[in-house]
């Protein structure tokens, strides 16, 4: 099984995630797309781990999951709070950065 296949798969998943973030306005969906991108990377890491026969990158995947879990907790909290404030999850409403 050539390594390319996995690379292409990962890239495809990653780019789908990116398209998602670009196309959607719902903050939660965007968040999910980011998770998808993370998983694409994880997949590639595991593939390399298999290829080089090295457990370190699997450990890395493990850590990515850890961070992703923490990130999701905080990120969802932020989204909830935001929803409470403006009663929407539409990112177009979040243009306060300009001011």
């Amino acid at each position, binding site marked *: *099984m*050539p390594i*390319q*296949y*996995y690379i*292409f*798969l990962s*890239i*495809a998943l990653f*780019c*789908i*995630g990116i*398209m*998602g973030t*670009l*196309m959607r*306005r*719902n903050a*939660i*969906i965007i*968040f*999910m*797309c980011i*998770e*998808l991108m993370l*998983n694409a990377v*994880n*997949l590639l890491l*595991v*593939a390399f*781990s*298999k*290829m080089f026969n*090295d*457990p*370190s990158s*699997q*450990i890395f*995947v*493990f*850590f990515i*999951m*850890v*961070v*992703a*879990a*923490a*990130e*999701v*907790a*905080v990120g*969802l*909290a932020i*989204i*909830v*709070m935001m929803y*409470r404030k403006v009663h929407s*999850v*539409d990112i*177009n409403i979040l243009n306060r950065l300009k001011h």
Partner: protein
Amino acid sequence: MDLFEILFWLLTIMAISCALGVVLSRNPVNSVLFLIATFFSISGHYILMNAQFLAIVNIIVYAGAIMVLFLFVIMLMNLNADVEPQKSRLVQFAGIISGGILFLVILAALRDARTHGTLEREATDIGLIKNLGKTLFQNYVLPFEISSVLFLSAMIGAIVIGKKESVHPVVSERNPHQN
């Protein structure tokens, strides 16, 4: 085409189509479900690569814990296809185009990467808990411990952020001159 390859292609097609489903479905709940399916297929890939531990963790942590969290939040906000905000066609089109261009660029860039790298089919034992655990607690014990601090702080942060604001009234929003 042996079983291995059939499984590989099956999982690949499933992952990509489910990922597209995440992006394209209008109802957020469907998106979540599609994402869970994607994670399952990725876990299948892990198993194919003898990374059993990660496959299980992926299912437990991602598909289980994280996605449930997403689902809860969506339900909490009572989001559905009707309230789902939509970008204009033009922006969506631009998103697809730029994503596609990125895809092509990376693809083209990696097309002639080292081709001799192949994955051995025979099982290796690096993905077993025993080996991973050894590596983790021998070489990566400090990051591991630090990640616990990360969790703690994320937990506290999530609580602080998500707490109802009525617990302590916000003074700043009131005009001080009126008092």
